[in-house]
């Protein structure tokens, strides 16, 4: 009887230990994994990719190249999060910057915060770097357009089922005269059903 009890305890303990251990599986960064239904890396990549492709296929870019004789320089401004979720818009901005740079069709200017760090470095070089390698102030490339936008959501709930509707709006504004040269919109709709029973 005692042997049976000990055996049972041993089996139960091993089952419990297995259940409690942490498991890690490496995934491809492009693999789509949805756990909670919230905005995730897949949404961020998808929206950035599609919207930048759309913006680069519109006539504003050829008009600018024809009139100015150079590629437009773009800067990504603030993307406001007006959604129901704590979305890290920095990753979304980074995705858009990557798409813009990799397109090869536009010049890209560093953001305000990055520029300040570079200016500090330039000021430091002014004092400490050799004349041959020193970079002068006043040579910055000014952006022609700024991209701004916002992420909005509408959530409809009924019991354990939710429909989440995300709408991302981006616009490209000419820094010279505040003209809006492109407006893009991307919508994502998700149906999320939560279980009513757990173990």
């Amino acid at each position, binding site marked *: 009887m005692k042997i049976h009890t000990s055996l049972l305890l041993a089996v139960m303990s091993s089952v419990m230990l297995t259940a409690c251990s942490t498991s890690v599986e490496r995934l491809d960064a492009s693999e789509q994994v949805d756990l909670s239904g919230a905005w995730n890396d897949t949404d961020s990549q998808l929206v950035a990719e599609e919207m930048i492709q759309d913006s680069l296929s519109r006539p504003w870019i050829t008009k600018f190249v024809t009139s100015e004789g150079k590629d437009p320089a773009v800067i990504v401004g603030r993307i*406001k*999060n*007006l*959604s*129901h*979720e*704590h979305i890290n818009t920095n990753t979304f901005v980074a995705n858009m910057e990557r798409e813009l740079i990799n397109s090869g069709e536009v010049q890209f200017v560093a953001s305000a915060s990055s520029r300040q760090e570079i200016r500090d470095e330039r000021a430091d070089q002014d004092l400490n770097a050799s004349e041959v390698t020193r970079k002068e102030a006043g040579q910055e490339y000014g952006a022609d357009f700024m991209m701004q936008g916002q992420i909005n*959501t509408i*959530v409809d*709930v009924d*019991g*354990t089922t*939710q429909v989440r509707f995300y709408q991302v709006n981006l616009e490209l504004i000419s820094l010279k005269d505040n003209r809006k040269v492109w407006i893009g919109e991307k919508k994502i709709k998700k149906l999320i059903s*939560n*279980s*009513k*029973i*757990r*173990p």
Partner: protein
Amino acid sequence: MYKLLLVFVFLLSGCAQHSNNRLADDLQFQTPESILSALQETKPDDRDIAQYYLNIGYLQLLSGHFPESIDALLIAKKEMGSLAATSVSENIGAGTVNETLRSYSGYPLDRVMVHNMLALSYLFNQDIGGARVEMLQADVAMKKLFDKDSLSGQLASTHLISGIIYELLDERSNAFISYQLAEEVLNKRHIALPEGLKLGLLRMSLKMGNDQAYDKYSQAYPSLAEHQTAKGQVFVLYFNGVVSNKVQASLTVPSFNGQQLIRIAMPTYPERVPRPVSAQVGDGQQIKNTQVTENINDIAREDLDKEYPSILLLTTTRAIAKYKVVEEAKKKDQLIGTLLNFATLISEVADLRSWNMLPATIQFAYLDTNSDNIVVSPPKTADNSVSLQQGHQHVILATNLSNKILHYQQ
């Protein structure tokens, strides 16, 4: 042997409840910081994680530890979300031993109030965008809990805080709608509208150019409609006291044949509740009293009242099940039966868990001022002088539990 172990576990779970309730009682007399340290020294049971982090997060907010408060409250919010589904195993435990074997998933009050506390933590942490997100989530949470026959989970303070945040962001129509929703909930609860809320309704309807609404509120509050607006705005939230703890009401009776003792234990709230006391806010020209926007003592009682029939049903069912088990055991061995009866008696404890460190009431006052200084005077604590940047918007959170004043300005 395993039965003795179970008994030990049950005793421990009762101890954790009592220790937590004692700390909540002590919050009336000790600073939030000292209660926070004492609470952090305890290790919560896995089933009490949500309750533990709700209390920790709230105390961290009052102590001014905003990033930590956000982390703790987010853990509690996530835990409550994951526990929303019914657990089969926990229901079996609750049906055979006691209700504390169920994980604490939060009452409707907790599920909405957590967004209030998170929004305030984000705001005082200089992240108004994060505060706005929480208010949108609170709106979804309230829609989920909506029941046309009750006000369960519908909090006027949440709508009020939403209105303040929207007003700070200059989202006028959103602010107006939130103030209107706060008005609606307060009217349904038969609580007099705070003057600050009336002013908010007038201010937003005027700013939006909604003449119809402005006329309606001007007629309803003629003296306030003539209110001269100064450049600076001060929204004062005041947390008064500590919400009541649940207490256990138990009854032990012999069975009809005198062979066993049968015990039932139910949670209840004490009947006597201290009267809400206001704080005063003044700028040298005017003095305003904070007014009740949310009576958390009442809402906590409503939440328990709503659950009472199911708790009563489960308690009586459990008493019958325990009686049968002891009866069967006694047939086999009298001594084991008696010991088992003893175990069923001491394992029968009521579930006294709740977010028990919340304020008893949330109060509100509003001031238009050109002054560069206001004085906040909670009862029985020293006056607190708060410096204001003239012409700015300010949100101030005061409590009678400490002298700390939390201040956001833009």
